[in-house]
């Protein structure tokens, strides 16, 4: 049965009440995990517990699973359920003197809490009980007050699974440049536009540190089972730079089995490398090493390091060759581009490898970066259904009081633009010219569109 429990060796995305997040790697059970100002806890106490749940750091340094209803129950007594009374927020004054507990006393309580003498909820209760305006507030305002205090004093965090979605949200909030501004909703749409199936074989240009590959991997694997799907990633440099993939908890061997990669500069064989396999054994062309013209013979030495280096080089050549052989005409079930390079250049190089009736999906933070490719697609007989879209996602406050320390998803601004199209086979048979199309009333589309309801 699948159970999503935290294991030794896992990475965990920790969300703290301040809305700060941090990725921690539980290397061993004996470890202490340091969350900075927020505190430290024993890794062993988190192992075997569920992901995507909340935990309290206790005085002994162990964490305790927080029953989602407990915050409510613990503090619920402080909330007056009697909604019939005429109370409202209109005559509240936001003043320090509403709080009867002195600053010194709060400091002492805080110290007690840090030393583990009292629970964080104790402080919150004290603050709530001594807030003179509390009872006059509406239920909702009371909850908000409690939540704000909880954020300040509690030692509660959420242990999230580092899924592509959670990592996407994490990077969007902390380092959006790293992931090229992809927001959760745009990543989700890329997966739909690209019709990602477990059995797909997808060509990917990922300059997002591996976020796109992570999302694809997730949709194409199930534990350590081989579902047939493959990914082929173009490397911006000579070495893979997909560290976000490593932040997910993938089963061993899955990444290696699923992802092939090739440097942009290796799409065509390097001169002198030849194409026959015999050269693998004495080639001078190496990945990621130099391009010396001299063939490399096995070094005449017994130095183990030198021999090991040689073996690695030979293996690297073989791998590059094997990868290049997979870049065959119409071999791929889709092309996904979130790249630092010019989209039209990428398409010119890679489109022959994309199968017919297969999607091409490009994401960019900037609409203008997509426009030349869009116009090219519109003018080409090789694409249909080219469109540029963006997404508007709004998060609303919900009328509940429970757990959840996450920040609101940024509601203004954009998660970027997506250019999507389908490659088609215009191979045989005549095609209409643009002017002929106009004459023949191909404005049909525009008329039907009026009837469409969304």
């Amino acid at each position, binding site marked *: 049965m699948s159970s999503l429990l935290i294991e030794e060796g896992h990475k965990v995305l920790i969300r703290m009440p301040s809305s700060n997040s941090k990725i921690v790697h539980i290397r061993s059970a004996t470890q202490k995990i340091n969350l900075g100002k927020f505190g430290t806890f024993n890794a062993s106490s988190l192992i075997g517990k569920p992901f995507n749940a909340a935990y309290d750091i206790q005085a002994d340094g162990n964490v305790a699973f927080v029953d989602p209803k407990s915050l409510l129950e613990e503090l619920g007594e402080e909330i007056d359920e009697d909604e019939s009374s005429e109370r409202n927020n209109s005559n509240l004054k936001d003043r320090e003197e509403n709080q009867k507990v002195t600053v010194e006393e709060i400091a002492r309580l805080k110290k007690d809490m840090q030393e583990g003498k009292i629970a964080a909820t104790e402080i919150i209760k004290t603050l709530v009980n001594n807030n003179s305006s509390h009872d006059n507030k509406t239920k909702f305002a009371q909850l908000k007050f409690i939540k704000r205090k909880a954020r300040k004093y509690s030692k509660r965090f959420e242990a999230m699974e580092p899924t592509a979605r959670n990592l996407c949200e994490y990077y969007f909030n902390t380092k959006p440049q790293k992931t090229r501004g992809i927001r959760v909703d745009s990543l989700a749409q890329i997966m739909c536009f690209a*019709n990602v199936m477990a059995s797909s074989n997808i060509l990917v240009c990922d300059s997002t540190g591996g976020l796109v590959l992570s999302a694809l991997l997730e949709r194409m694997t199930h534990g350590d089972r081989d579902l047939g799907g493959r990914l082929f990633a173009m490397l911006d440099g000579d070495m893979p730079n997909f560290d976000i993939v490593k932040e997910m908890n993938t089963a061993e061997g899955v990444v290696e089995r699923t992802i092939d990669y090739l440097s942009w500069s290796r799409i065509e064989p390097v001169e002198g490398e030849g194409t026959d396999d015999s050269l693998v054994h004495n080639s001078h062309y190496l990945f990621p090493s130099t391009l010396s013209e001299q063939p490399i013979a096995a070094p005449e030495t017994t130095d183990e390091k030198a021999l090991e280096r040689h073996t690695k080089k030979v293996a690297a050549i073989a791998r590059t060759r094997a990868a290049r052989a997979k870049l065959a005409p119409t071999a791929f079930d889709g092309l996904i581009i979130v790249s630092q390079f010019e989209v039209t250049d990428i398409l010119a190089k890679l489109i022959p490898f994309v199968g017919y009736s297969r999607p091409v999906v490009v994401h960019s933070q900037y609409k203008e970066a997509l*426009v030349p490719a869009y116009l090219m697609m519109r003018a080409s007989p090789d694409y249909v*259904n080219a469109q540029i879209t963006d997404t508007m996602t709004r998060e609303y406050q919900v009328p509940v009081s429970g757990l959840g320390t996450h920040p609101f998803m940024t509601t203004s601004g954009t998660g970027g633009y997506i250019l999507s199209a389908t490659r088609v086979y215009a191979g045989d048979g005549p095609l209409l010219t643009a002017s002929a199309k106009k004459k023949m009333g191909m404005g049909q589309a*525009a008329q*039907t569109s009026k009837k469409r309801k969304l």
Partner: protein
Amino acid sequence: MAAVGKEDHSPFTKYGKTIQDGDMVIAYVNPLDLQAVKIVKDGTMNNKYGAFDHNSIIGKPFGTRVLSKKGNGHITFLHPTPELWTACLPHRTQILYMPDIALVSSLLDLKPGAVVIESGTGSGSFSHSIARTIAPTGTLHTFEYHEERVLKFKDELASHDLSSIIHVNHRNVCKDGFGLTGVSDAVFLDLPSPWEAVAAAKETFKKGKVGRICTFSPAIEQVQRTCEELEKFGFYDVRMFETLIRRQEIKTLQKKPLPTRDNVTGFTKRESPKRKRDGQDDEDEEAAEGGEKEDEEAATGDKADQVVVSRTVQNVAGHTSFLVFASIFIE
């Protein structure tokens, strides 16, 4: 647990390369004119583009684009996808569209192997997408109380080879629950009164892991009641979203030169642009709604006199529905 590779060969879970006798294709003219067609040897398709012999595309690659018999349009024979199906399926109810489908799939953590519960099935728009995402090792249990819709959907599943991934149940989930315990990773409720199914939905979740639920409701009053019920049954981390997709309209404008003086008459003369593209603006207005307007001239014309402009299409559908998500842990 399901065996790996329950072999189904559904076009919604696995691509094919060439069109074969018996395959389903999507005959695509533009984003608003597309139609699912079953290709049969010696069959013909009739529509406003004329008669079309199926034999002429059997053996051709999916994605083959041909000129219609009448010469009035290009038809492209596309491989089916859940997104294309959503755009051309027979509507029996309101359906979910791609932007909501994408967000829900992501926030419910759908992926291969997931066991999902859905109600109501409606027209099966979302069901197809779920199947694509959880195949080949996942299962969708979908529940619908309207008998005719159940039967229609069963027929569709058989013809789309999805019966081993999607199990259809004829049942009133608000009254009778789901009849499943401890099996699901995610639950999706698109019902008029989702709160009536929350308690029953809780029963269906796998034990020992955190499960996810989503409800889809157009009205805030429904959201209110659902949230209360979710909280009552121990669901937490409740978040609510609304998502919209906005099409960008892109076109090429001809630059208009500044007026000059006519030396003969002395009046201001308005220079007409080199290539007349009058009325283009109006055309594009229509195309912006989703029509397949080819910007060939834009790409090939005299660039110096043109400027490429873009804007967000104004008439986006104002409001779809509220998506409420929550988590649950059952020991």
